[in-house]
């Protein structure tokens, strides 16, 4: 007679999925855009990326160690690496080393562990860190390196890249410039119209990602491909990306049609800044987004609306991080009010009326 001492109920078998599997799938989806971004901005970007990820692992390990828990399994779940990965993708590519370290500390310690670790945080850790950095260090966070792909003549070499990462960019004006959205904002402040400021703008280059911007959020094509693949893999649902992108497109189209000299076209909205990254990878963060399809549509639309508002009328040229954080704070409310209908009950939770024919 064999004795099994652990009586257990239901679902003795299970789907072959795990938290770390999900995290690695997301990282796999980010891979093309990441590799492109690292290539586009060269060695200083690679330094920053590695520093950010390693320091996130370090801070996560310290927090877990302080809690007296086993460190290795927590690191292996991949959540800290993914957070740092997403944060690094949104940083200026040639930012100094301490931006990555401070960013990771903010994301892991303030953004995640003080809430109780994985699954407990109210705000997206990567976006929380990014916004905190942007407000605290506005200069470093808005210094955008020129496109300087690896193996091209203008790309800094290994030694030079260490210099950039650890003591700053020497020849600032020659090597940096403004992002498209930032440039438009500045031009508006000097009362220039769009047709004037967008003389040199190439939609195609922006679409591929050949433009100044954050480390890995410039390539619309690669990010969207990764995002669509994630939807197809069933890792994320389509509701948030679709409603977010649709909201931005509709709002941008309406205003662009009304006044095309003051409101940029929907295509430009879609192909610049962190919109695609936010739509597929940031706003869809499980922990900080609603858990019903309807709730996710509301959440996505809210993010899209706020992004458009901040970009168009706000003080900052880009608003994805702010928008996501603001909607994160609305998630508990959305989940409270938008609930699925229980079988045999109406939306208010009362039993259905008998409908015998």
């Amino acid at each position: 007679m064999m004795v099994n001492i652990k009586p257990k109920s239901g679902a003795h078998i299970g789907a072959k999925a795990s938290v770390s599997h999900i995290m690695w799938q997301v990282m796999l989806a980010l891979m093309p855009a990441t590799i492109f971004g690292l290539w586009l901005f060269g060695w200083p970007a690679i330094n920053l990326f590695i520093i950010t990820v390693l320091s996130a692992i370090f801070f996560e390990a310290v927090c877990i160690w302080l809690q007296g828990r086993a460190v290795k399994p927590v690191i292996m779940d991949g959540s800290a690496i993914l957070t740092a990965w997403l944060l690094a993708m949104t940083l200026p590519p040639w930012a100094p080393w301490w931006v990555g370290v401070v960013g990771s500390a903010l994301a892991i310690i303030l953004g995640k562990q003080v809430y109780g670790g994985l699954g407990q945080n109210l705000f997206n850790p990567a976006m929380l860190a990014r916004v905190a950095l942007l407000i605290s260090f506005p200069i470093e966070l808005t210094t955008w390196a020129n496109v300087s792909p690896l193996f091209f003549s203008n790309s800094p070499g290994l030694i030079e890249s260490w210099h950039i990462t650890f003591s700053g960019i020497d020849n600032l004006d020659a090597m940096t410039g403004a992002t498209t959205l930032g440039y438009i904002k500045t031009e508006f402040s000097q009362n220039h119209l769009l047709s004037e400021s967008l003389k040199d703008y190439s939609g195609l280059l922006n679409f591929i990602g050949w433009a100044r911007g954050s480390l890995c959020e410039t390539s619309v094509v690669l990010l969207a491909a990764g995002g669509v693949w994630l939807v197809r893999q069933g890792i994320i649902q389509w509701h948030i990306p679709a409603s977010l992108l649709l909201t931005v497109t509709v709002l941008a189209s309406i205003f662009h049609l009304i006044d095309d000299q003051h409101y940029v076209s929907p295509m430009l909205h879609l192909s610049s800044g962190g919109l695609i990254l936010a739509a597929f990878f940031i706003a869809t963060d499980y922990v900080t987004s609603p858990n019903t399809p309807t709730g996710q549509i509301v959440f996505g639309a809210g993010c899209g609306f706020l992004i458009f508002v901040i970009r168009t009328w706000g003080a900052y040229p880009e608003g994805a991080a702010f928008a996501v954080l603001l909607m994160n704070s609305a998630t508990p409310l959305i989940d409270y009010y938008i609930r699925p209908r229980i079988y045999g009950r109406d939306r208010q939770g009362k039993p259905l009326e008998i409908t015998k024919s």
Partner: protein
Amino acid sequence: MLSFFTKSRIRGGVHAEGYKELTSADKIVSTFPLPKTLYIPLQQHVGKPAEPLIRVGDKVLKGQLLAYSQGLISSPVHAPSSGIILDVNDYPAPHPSALPIRMIVLETDGKDEWVKSKIVVDPFQLTPEDISLRVGAAGIVGLGGATFPTAVKLNMGRENSIDILIINGAECEPYLSCDDRLMQERADQIIDGVRLMLHGMESDRAVVAIEDNKPQAFYAMQTAARPYPLIEVIQIPTRYPMGWDRQLIRYVTGKEVPVGCRSSEIGVTIHNISTAHAVHNAIRKGYPLVSRVVTVSGGAVRRPMNVEIPLGTLISEVFKFCDVDLAQTARIIMGGPMMGDALPHTGLPTVKATSGVLALTESELKSTDVQPCIRCASCVTVCPAGLRPVDMANNIRMNQLDAAVDLGLKDCISCGCCSYICPSNIPLVQYFKYASGEVVARQQAQHKSEQTKRLMDDRNSRMERIARQQEEEERIRIAAKAERERIKAEQAAAAAEAVAQETLV
């Protein structure tokens, strides 16, 4: 395109890996050696346990009534083989707790001799009430796992004059294929059972629903049903829990059973195909329910099969027959792997509800390495009842059971989809079963304290009343005494006056 906009008829659910091919290709094995001893629980159904009418030492024949049903919702128990009654006592139940329940122990004599029964020539001449009576007397209960007495359901169907009888051939649980084989091999008998049920409920439409992963069963049943236009055989999508009665009702009829109602109240009754088969046996052959087809499967089973066994056979005997490697067995499960119960050992009997006995290896089991919830909402997506398991579990963890009840704890059907899909391996169903039990326990405790309080209040008021009565009596007594004294005094006064008058005179 129009169908895209109409309300979806299937909600939630998972595509669970089937593993049915382990047993679904081979015929039902009917050479199971008769066990020496059978352990027959008195409660193998929903409702009150049956009451034994035999004595220890009695000689019984196969199919003889051992215990009669008591109460409205109950079911009798019959002898699965001929032999001598060894004992009527408490033995471990086929339940995760293995706590003892009352069982009849039968020592078989090897003759397997049937009790004589009268066979009905044309059951369609019987009154519908008679059909119900015979089904009830044969001890037939819902064999899909619900074990609700079938006769009661037939009566309810007749009283509510239902429009449609759904025959559940979904068999959506992975590993199990006993219904599949039964439909392939005994389709005519099942269809006959369905016709008898229709007659018993005075209804004239039946739909047999079979998941589309069982094409052979579907063709067999379709062929068997061809002569009877009242019976329609349809294929339904393969998606666990398609066999949940309410999911199937919604898929077939488009109607939803309101919470707290029986399906017959909206004009639908649902029975399992094995139940229909048992009805055929009971009415046509006069056989009560004494055996059933059980799927024995799992990674640790060297000879997985569907086998017909007498009820009350110990799992250890079944495992011996199927050559189960106990060293490899990580968990023994009665029923399917989604909703079945893990059993602590093999010394437990099979019962009417036993559709399968599984011996699963460690690699087949869901990992028990629980990770933090990442709110991925997979559990919300797959829940067929429209619940939010993630929030319910969070509240239960914080001991906020009332909040969990508000979120719909009582609407949980324990189908196991949430536990199945959870990437963090959180045993959600375990949470819900614990909480449901705890809520009932708390309600009972509260009820008890309320009763105690009521009794105390009653006693206090009674004592008060008695005290008041005594006081009143005392007052009356004092008043009466005063009155008596007054009268006495008056009389004395009168007498004194009379004396005085006399003296005056």
